[in-house]
C-alpha cells in the first residue's frame, strides 16, 4: 500500500507519520481558534492546512494595512527624529 502511495506522492516514504503529526500540532498551536477550544485529536490535517493558509493571508493583509498606516505616520513625524528612523526600519 505504501508503495503505491509513494508512487503518487514523492515524499511519502521518507517522512514519518509522527513527524507530520508533530508539525501539524505545532501549526495548530500557532493558529488561533483551532486547537484551542477543540479537542486536539479531532482536527483533520486538511483543516489545519486551510486554517494556516487563511491565517497567513490575514496576517499579510494586516501587515499591509499597518505598513500603510506607518507610512502615513512617517509623513507626520519629523524627518530627523528617531521615530522616523524606527518607522522607516519597520517599513523596510
Amino acid at each position, binding site marked *: 500500500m505504501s508503495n*503505491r*502511495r509513494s*508512487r*503518487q*506522492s*514523492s*515524499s511519502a516514504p*521518507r*517522512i514519518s507519520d509522527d*513527524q*507530520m503529526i508533530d*508539525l*501539524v500540532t*505545532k*501549526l495548530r*498551536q*500557532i*493558529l*488561533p*481558534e483551532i486547537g484551542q477550544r477543540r479537542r486536539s485529536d479531532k482536527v*483533520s*490535517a*486538511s483543516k489545519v*492546512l*486551510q486554517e*494556516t*493558509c*487563511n*491565517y*497567513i*493571508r*490575514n*496576517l*499579510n493583509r*494586516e*501587515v499591509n494595512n*499597518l*505598513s500603510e*498606516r*506607518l507610512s502615513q*505616520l*512617517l509623513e*507626520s*513625524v519629523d524627518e530627523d*527624529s*528617531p*521615530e522616523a528612523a*524606527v*518607522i522607516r*526600519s*519597520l517599513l*523596510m
Partner: protein
Amino acid sequence: MEHQGWSFEENYSLSTNRRSIRPHDELVELLWRDGQVVLQSQTHREQTQKQEHHEEALRSNTFLEDQETVSWLQYPPDEDPFETDDFSSHFFSTVDPLQRPTSETVKPNPPQVMVKPKACPDPPQVMPPPKLRLTNSPSGIRETEMEQYSVTTIGPSHCGSNPSQNDFDVSMSHDRSKNIEEKLNPNVSSSSGGSSGCSFGKDIKEMACGRSITTDRKRKHIMDTDDSVSLSDAIGNKSNQRSGSNRRSRAAEVHNLSERRRRDRINERMKALQELIPHCSKTDKASILEEAIDYLKSLQLQLQVMWMGSGMAAAAAAPMMFPGVQPPPFIRQMQSPVQLPRFPVMDRSAIQNNPGLVCQNPIQNQIISDRFARYIGGFPQMQAATQVRPIRRRVY
C-alpha cells in the same frame, strides 16, 4: 469492437497477405442478410483459413507471452473440422429468427469476429451473440471458447496500437473469457484457461492503458466490479459467483476513493500553502510545513512590532504617551517573554535563530527598548509586549 474488427482484418491481411479474407467477410455479411445459401460454400474455404488464423493468434499470443492461452489456441485447429460440420448441420436446422447468430456460429474464427462488427456496427449487438452461441450446443461452447480466447489474445495486441479502444476491447474480451469461465467449468479444463485468460486480459489492460487507477487498486477486484457493472446486463450470471468479492471490493474501493479524496484535498492545500510562503523552494510536505510554521511566527512578530511602531509613531505624532495603542489582538501565543527581533524586521535568519521567540541580539534589543522606553513612557519593552498577550479578538 468495430475498430477491433477492422484492425483484425488489417493484421491478417498484412501478415498473411491473403486478400481472400476480405471476400470471406463480405460473403458472410451477405449471409447475414440474405440467407443460408451462400454460407455453405464458405465453410469449406474457411476451414483452411481457420488454422492460419489460429496460428496467427498463436503468434500474437506468444508475442504476448502467455503460455496458457497459447495452449488454448492449440485446441481449435484440432476441433475445427468437426465443429464446422456440426454447425453447418446445426445451421440448416435452425429457424429463421436464429439466422443471424447461427451464421455467426458457423464461423467460429476470428474472421467471424471480424465480420460481426462490420455487419452490425452497434456494439451492443456484439454482446448477445456470445450468449446465443453458448446456449446452442456443447460443441458450440467449445467453439466459442476458442473463438473468444482468440479474441482475447488478438484484441490486446491491438490495444497498444489503438489506445482509445483499449478499455472497450479488452473489457469486452475480458468479459467473454469470464463468461466462458463460468459456462465451461464443468466441460473442459477451461477453468485454468479461463483464469489465465482473465488475468491475461487484466495484464494487457494495465500494460496497454497504463492507468494509474488500475495499477493502484487491487487489480482483480476492481476489474471484476467494473466489468460486471458495465456489462452485467449482457453477460449475466456473473454476479452470482462474485457477490462476495464484489462486496469486499466495493468496500475497499469506497475506502480507497475516500482516502484518495482526502489526500487530494491535503495536497491541494499544501500547494496553496507553498504558494503563500515567500521564497519557498521545498516540495516535500514536512519542509513546507516547517517553513509555514517559521513564516507564521515571523509574520506574527512583524505585526507585533509594527503595531508597536505605529503606536509609537502615533504617540509621537500626537503628544500623548500611552503604551500599546492597538495591540495586535490575534497574537496570543507569546507566553515566553517576548523580545523584539532586531531591525530590519523579519528576515528569515532572524526568525530561524529565534525558535523561542527570543531575540538573540541583545544590543539591538537594548536599542529598541530604549527607543520605545523613551516614547512609550518608559515602559520596558517586555511589559509592552506582555500587554499584548491577553487580548484575543479575531481580526478576520
